[in-house]
């Protein structure tokens, strides 16, 4: 356990040393600032010009918040993939890993150390970003989503899934190949989500099933959809049944089966990574 924490600490030191943390903090502050400003201005206009619809400001706030969080989800996903796809392969390729693994620590301890550090870094990012956006919406518009804590927790889970998958690939693939595979899977999952939405909207069962299958194979977008449900206020969700929802947000809460699947997925991926890496010749 100590060796795992030594590696985790080293990984965080690396992120700080390479100014990754500083860059992330500065850019996130800028992102949150721009969101806050845009949200205030647009919500102000929505309140001023409701067009006779008393619910219009709430709908505007919902759209803006979900859009903002959707962007955060993409940023967090890229961060998770960038951190993880080269986490092990990069060290193997540069030859820096050999001296480290000749120390009295197991391969599993090394991999877990990197995993823990990456999870901590990316989770902190997601919580800070998503938390800030939800807070801005609440302060400016009194926005009350169904389950903000659940939503942020699911967003964290999505990044954990992505970075665990990245780490698995990194334990046996070269960095570039791994990055190509992971970004493609992420894109495919996104496409799967859209296909599923279209299938449901136009009651096309084949399309809907196709979307579901893709979501099961790589559930990053499925987790976003689960999170998106909790990001919307009850009023919007109730009206949306007749009015129609946002294409990339769910109108129904995630099923228990889905939640179990997306919880089991990173665990299985991590176990596979541990197994693959233990067997590898360096």
């Amino acid at each position: 356990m100590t060796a795992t924490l030594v590696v985790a600490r080293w990984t965080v030191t690396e992120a700080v040393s390479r100014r990754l943390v500083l860059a992330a903090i500065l850019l996130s502050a800028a992102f949150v600032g721009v969101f806050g400003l845009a949200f205030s201005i647009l919500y102000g206009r929505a309140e001023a010009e409701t067009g006779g619809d008393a619910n219009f400001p709430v709908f505007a706030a919902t759209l803006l918040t979900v859009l903002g969080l959707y962007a955060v989800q993409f940023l967090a996903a890229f961060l998770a993939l960038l951190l993880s796809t080269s986490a092990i392969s990069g060290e193997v390729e540069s030859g820096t890993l050999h001296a480290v693994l000749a120390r009295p620590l197991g391969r599993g301890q090394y991999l877990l150390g990197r995993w823990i550090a990456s999870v901590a870094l990316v989770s902190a990012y997601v919580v800070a970003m998503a938390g800030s956006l939800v807070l801005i919406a609440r302060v400016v518009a009194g926005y009350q989503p169904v389950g903000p804590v659940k939503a942020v927790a699911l967003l964290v889970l999505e990044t954990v899934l992505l970075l665990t998958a990245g780490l698995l690939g990194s334990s046996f693939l070269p960095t570039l190949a791994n990055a190509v595979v992971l970004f493609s899977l992420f894109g495919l999952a996104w496409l799967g989500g859209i296909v599923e939405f279209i299938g449901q909207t136009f009651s096309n069962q084949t399309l809907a099933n196709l979307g579901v299958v893709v979501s099961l194979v790589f559930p990053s977008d499925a987790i976003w959809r689960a999170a998106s449900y909790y990001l919307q206020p009850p009023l919007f969700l109730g009206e949306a049944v007749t009015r129609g929802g946002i294409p990339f947000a769910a109108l129904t809460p995630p099923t228990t089966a889905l939640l179990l699947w997306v919880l089991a997925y990173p665990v299985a991926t991590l176990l596979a990574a541990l197994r693959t890496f233990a067997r590898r010749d360096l």
Partner: protein
Amino acid sequence: MRKAYGRQVALHDVTLRVEPGEVFGFLGPNGAGKTTAVKILTGLVHASAGQARVLGRPAGEPAARRRIGYLPEHFRFQEWATGTALLDFHGRLAGLPAGQRPARIAEVLELVGLAGRGGQRIRTYSKGMTQRIGLAQALLGRPELVLLDEPTSALDPVGRREVRDLIRWLREQGVTVFLNSHLLSEIELVCDRVAIIDRGRVVRGGRLADLVGSATALRVAVDRVDEPLLAALGRYGRVESVDGGNLTLLVDDVDVAPAVADCAVRAGYRLFELVPVQRSLEEVFLGLVHGGDR
């Protein structure tokens, strides 16, 4: 041990024993399998067959690595870190108590000639300095066994000399040293025993003195070299090369020189020269190995 990567066999059959406290030289051309063997010992590579034991434990177990220091072949280290930060990280992994770490880090930096340079980032180090920080890292945990894979490849002659002195100093401390090298002079100057590896097989091993001493030769110059002469000399040793009237006869013992002279003269040859030559490690080496990976 045996190691195959798919159909490519890196080590056919390597059987070695290194005694505690000795400086063991593992000698071979590039691509002979030296690095693969050391990687099996450090657990970085899994042997396809056979087994290796390190300090009494199966190689590859973390516990077997507790008392070893290792300098990898390409000595690349995290460039974003300072020398001291790198050593602190390795010190923690090696289980050095927090209270001892700073003093021990200063000690090994001094030992490898990097005193006062620990605060610099490794990115700014020269190749030689990087190899030195690698040596410091290998010695950090007060190992009982040090595995050095080409430890002087990036060093200038002065640096090489310093590393030789360091290896001798380690031997005085009772530390076992496993030295991978293709630099014959390095091996010749510091090793007690050597094994020569070629294309994945150990082709010769033993005490350095025996290896060099056993391979003696007689340089013979006669008026003519013909079949009867070669047949006659064949009784005393192996004729290695013939060049006009000069030939080299490999013998087990130079004491056969008078008998060789007698034999040649009695058979009617005129003998101009008969010189015993001690073969250098280089000659032994070149006689045993193929061209390496060239």
